[in-house]
């Protein structure tokens, strides 16, 4: 094994059900329901998934949802903006903890 990640492994995802079929069925049914057209469109959900995929840094998810976004009619600019949303939240979540730093520093400083 020269890498932990191989693109050809992505279609094998469903094989995970061979270990615990009932749990896998529940998961995949739920997964399918989540991504179905609802109050949010399937296109909007794919963009959210793409942003989350970058946050959790899952190569499989990035591959799958890049294609899914394109196939649902999103363009590169929209997909890039979605990733910036994830990046802003991720960066912001670090920066907002600066409040804790400031609180602690204030408490122990003259």
């Amino acid at each position, binding site marked *: 094994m020269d890498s932990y990640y191989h693109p050809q492994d992505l279609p094998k995802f469903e094989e995970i059900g061979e270990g615990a079929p009932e749990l896998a069925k529940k998961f995949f049914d739920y997964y399918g329901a989540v991504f179905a057209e609802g109050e949010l469109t399937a*296109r909007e959900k794919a963009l959210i998934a793409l942003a989350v995929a970058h946050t959790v840094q899952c190569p499989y998810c990035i591959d799958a949802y890049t294609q899914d976004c394109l196939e649902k009619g999103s363009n590169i600019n929209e997909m890039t903006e979605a990733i910036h949303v994830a990046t802003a939240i991720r960066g912001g979540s670090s920066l907002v903890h600066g409040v804790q730093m400031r609180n602690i520093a204030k408490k122990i400083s003259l």
Partner: protein
Amino acid sequence: MQQPAQSLHNGSKISEKKLPVEPFRQTLAKHGLNLTRKETTTLQINVGLLCNQACRHCHLEAGPHSEEVMSAETVDQVVALAQRFPFEILDITGGAPEMNPNLVDMIERLSGISPRVMLRSNLTALANGERDCLVEVCKERRVVIVASFPSLNEAQAESQRGRGVFQESVNVMKKLNSLGYGQPDSGLELNLVSNPTGAFLPSSQDQLEKRFCHVLKNKWGIVFNNLFSFANVPLGRFRRWLEQSGNLERYLQKLATSFNPCAIEGLMCRSLVSVSWDGYVFDCDFNQAAGLYTGGKKTHISDLKELPEPGEPIAVSHHCYTCTAGAGFT
């Protein structure tokens, strides 16, 4: 569209045997299906491979240097064919059909024969007022214009169709709108065709139509009647790009795994006769690109005594997975 630095196949031609999907006919058999002809209702006429663009997804490799253009004599034979059989739809395609010098004459003659004449346009061939006369004839004869407009994103559209195409297409659509095309109750139909800008499947037609309708109206005040989304066919220039960019195997697998047996019923090849620029008969434009003649026999329209009979088999190959992927290509 970015191309990976290293090609899997180094641009070499992959033989059909080595392809990573089972033969199309085998897939049909697995589902207990046959692909056969129904009653022929549409005559599709490819008036030549000359085009002002050289789109990277073109299955016919049309371009500015092509010398394959339908002659006046073949146009006469096409008109005679259209008179001989009761086609409901006459569908003119290319290349850029606008570049055939006999097109206006052809439209004038065909529009008196069939209730619905369609002209497939890349839009830019109608730009800059060069073919205003053609547009006027189309308007007068109520010819349906079916225009290629792949993406609402300029960079992606131009990665498929060439630099400057996006804005020019927008300008031509505005002009067609100003003549009444696409306007409600005008009787002048403007339909759009969107092909994916790469090796992925098209969006749901309904969703994409809503989105194009919203964005084109809000950004440019453009209106149209219908939008059709079609997958790119792995033949010609697009196939070469798939090979060179290392996308061929994965794309074919994607098409094959998206096989939808329900799509067979409405496939266009079942009810269409496709005539090549030199007058030969095929089941569809893609079979033209693949060199698969109707009934496995090279037949010229001047020798065509009868239309293909319902029940006759249709020539198939791997590219047929394109039309059966997802909702299908009808």
